[in-house]
């Protein structure tokens, strides 16, 4: 054998892969609109409210929005630890 090609498949195991990030509308298994490669470089962030977004998407929103509210429930967004 001289060479082989490997093909990898991955998905977050913490979330339904069909779900999309409400902010960028891209699947969670894809990256946010600013990134090129999904995965650890473009992680997900859950709020205490259980709503999930790409970290980069929710960070940009919280920088823009003075009240710092969750885009889905309008309550102050606190990252789940």
């Amino acid at each position: 054998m001289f060479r082989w090609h490997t093909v990898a498949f991955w998905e977050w195991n913490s979330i339904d892969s069909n779900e999309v990030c409400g902010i960028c509308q891209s699947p969670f298994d894809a990256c946010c609109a600013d990134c090129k490669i999904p995965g650890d470089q473009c992680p997900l962030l859950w709020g205490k409210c259980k709503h999930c977004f790409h970290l980069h998407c929710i960070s940009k929103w919280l920088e823009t929005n003075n009240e710092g509210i969750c885009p889905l429930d309008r309550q102050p967004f606190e990252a789940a630890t």
Partner: protein
Amino acid sequence: MSTPSRRRLMKDFKRLQSDPPGGISGAPCSDNIMLWNAVIFGPGDTPFEDGTFKLLLQFDETYPNKPPTVKFVSKMFHPNVYANGELCLDILQNRWSPTYDVAAILTSIQSLLHDPNPNSPANAEAANLYRENRKEYTRRVREIVETSWES
């Protein structure tokens, strides 16, 4: 050039085409994805019924973290629409959320035609007539429904 806002607007467009809400249509200009033309058909069982109201949506690179500027191009007579066509609608101002897309914006405007809010009037005359003289309000709305077909 592809930017996060432009990529998001392409997704909005795809969603609007694959799963279009009833009574609205919208599309970006062929040479500028940041500028959209939209049409809202007047909801049935309202004085706006059968109207075809054209709107212009202007986005910038802050979308979806900031709402677009939205205005009616067609003449409008509605308690929450200013004389220049701009709207007084909370989700386009202080209740904006980055999870809204073009379909959500147009659907909200459609429901505003259904349920005007006379407590935050942008057109005082329309608000007064809506509250106090529904018959005359309806007559004035029917006038702009007819003009909506012309241009």
